[in-house]
């Protein structure tokens, strides 16, 4: 049992060495594959981060959707009470809260923490009194808004729907354009990987032929190439993950100081997921490329039996040199 394990380990180690040699042998081509893969993963990663944050933002905004009715200046306490009653009686309304102009200012001040002291800047309080109205079902908001508008003493009514719609549209745009970019670069990266592996296979054609002749199994022959592709995928993913993580951590910190009330996902909540997706995609690109290349090599297309002029022709040597031994 121990012997078996040692044997497996030795074999695996042999595969890894072969893969690494293949990578080095192709030099510039491997670098090109890895670089292009990096561009693809960079686009994928940044777009994932952006999307996740936009979705998070939309979620928060949606959960907080409420109607705000700004009251005419100088409404007194009694008017206010009757107003509140009237609004409460509107169908679908769940709760109505009164927010005085002082409370509104205090809230604004709070959102700036202590970086800006509003009282120093403002002589008078420019904010109006308002009502915050929540509904049972967000779909009913437009109706309720219609009703609230008709209540005397209400100057203006706003609600968050537009903001959400715009956020969702933005998320869609980001997702679409980035998907395009990812597909493009991932495609190019795969093509390059396919051809890198192909060059490795060509370089070892003689060896492979002999391996097949002396009875090596197909998987024994394939493993080093699969590992080579995998390695290229990883080599593309790792620096991208490192870079994006750093950039996101720094970015979140900076943004939080500049736009304090912007809700952003905490790095530990999102980075591991993105890293996983990037590693998986990188590995997928690499292995996919290898598999395509191996398939093309081990199962070359049967050439047409006739040449362009319709004359029969010899089964040609595959342009990239297929093995005669199957």
């Amino acid at each position, binding site marked *: 049992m121990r012997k078996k394990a040692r044997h497996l380990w*030795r074999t695996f180690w042999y595969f890894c060495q072969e893969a690494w040699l293949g990578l080095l042998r192709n030099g510039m081509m491997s670098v090109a594959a890895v670089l292009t893969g990096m561009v693809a993963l960079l686009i994928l990663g940044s777009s994932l981060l952006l999307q996740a944050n936009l979705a998070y933002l939309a979620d928060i905004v949606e959960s907080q959707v409420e109607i705000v009715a700004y009251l005419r200046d100088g409404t007194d306490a009694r008017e206010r009470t009757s107003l509140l009653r009237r609004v409460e009686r509107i169908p679908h309304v769940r709760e109505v809260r009164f927010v005085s102009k002082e409370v509104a200012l205090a809230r604004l001040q709070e959102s700036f923490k202590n970086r800006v002291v509003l009282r120093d800047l403002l002589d008078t309080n420019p904010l109006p009194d308002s009502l915050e109205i929540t509904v049972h079902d967000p779909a009913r908001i437009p109706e309720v808004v219609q009703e609230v508008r008709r209540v005397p003493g209400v100057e203006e009514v706003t609600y968050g729907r537009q903001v959400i719609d715009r956020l969702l549209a933005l998320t869609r745009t980001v997702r679409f354009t980035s998907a395009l970019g990812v597909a493009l670069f991932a495609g190019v990266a795969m093509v390059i990987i396919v051809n890198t592996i192909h060059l490795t296979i060509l370089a070892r054609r*003689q060896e492979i032929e002999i*391996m097949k002749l*002396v*009875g090596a199994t197909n998987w024994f022959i394939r493993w080093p190439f699969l590992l080579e592709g995998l390695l290229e995928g990883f080599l593309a993913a790792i620096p991208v993950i490192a870079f994006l993580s750093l950039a996101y951590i720094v970015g979140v910190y900076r943004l939080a100081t500049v736009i304090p009330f912007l809700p952003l996902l905490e790095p530990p909540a999102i980075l591991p997921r993105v890293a996983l997706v990037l590693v998986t995609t990188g590995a997928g690109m690499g292995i996919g490329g290898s598999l395509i290349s191996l398939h093309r090599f081990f199962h070359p297309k049967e050439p047409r039996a006739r040449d362009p002029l319709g004359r*029969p022709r010899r*089964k040609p040597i595959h342009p990239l040199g297929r093995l005669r031994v199957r």
Partner: protein
Amino acid sequence: MIVFQGVSKIYPNGVKALQGVNLHISPGEFVFIVGPTGAGKSTLLRMIYRDEVPTRGKVFVGSQDVTRLPSRQIPYLRRRIGVVFQDFKLLPHKTAWENVAFALHVTGAPEEEIPRRVGRALAVVGLLDKALSFPHQLSGGEQQRVSIARALVHEPPILLADEPTGNLDPATSWEIIQLLAAINRRGTTVVVTTHNKIIVDMLRKRVVELSEGMVVRDQQHGLYAQEG
């Protein structure tokens, strides 16, 4: 035991390489396959180690119908058949020893058995003293011996050689054929294709002559060409 039962091979381009070949080679035999170029000699050998499958007919190696072999089984078939080529097919960056050991490594042989088995194979071809030479440091005949050692390292019951002396001078050719005969005397079935009239005529072994894909002669103790 190698048996061909009504084997025909038509290549995708329409070339009829073999037509209704019946052949029975017993264990321990030594057989020459002769015939003009394009007669189908190489095609016949390739059927045995499943490099090609017949269009019609069956090919048995031992009791196994190799035309029905699932492709996962092919490597194990090949470990029971040693193949020697005209152009040696040695890896130029490996020593004679490494070239032979390579065949064991890539079939996943247990590491600790490898030295003993390589040593034995090189001893059979009489090349133990050149084990550490690279191919370019060996003469053509010596290189062919290395490739025979590699074919023998799995101790296969069958050894196939496709024009093993095509690139060698007469003296060296003779030496190689003597070696194959010696291996045959130890019990290995040996099948050799050749154009070398002198050698066939000297050895007087069984001769199978192909012509246009058909067996036109199958003679014990035969000559390169039909007598008379």
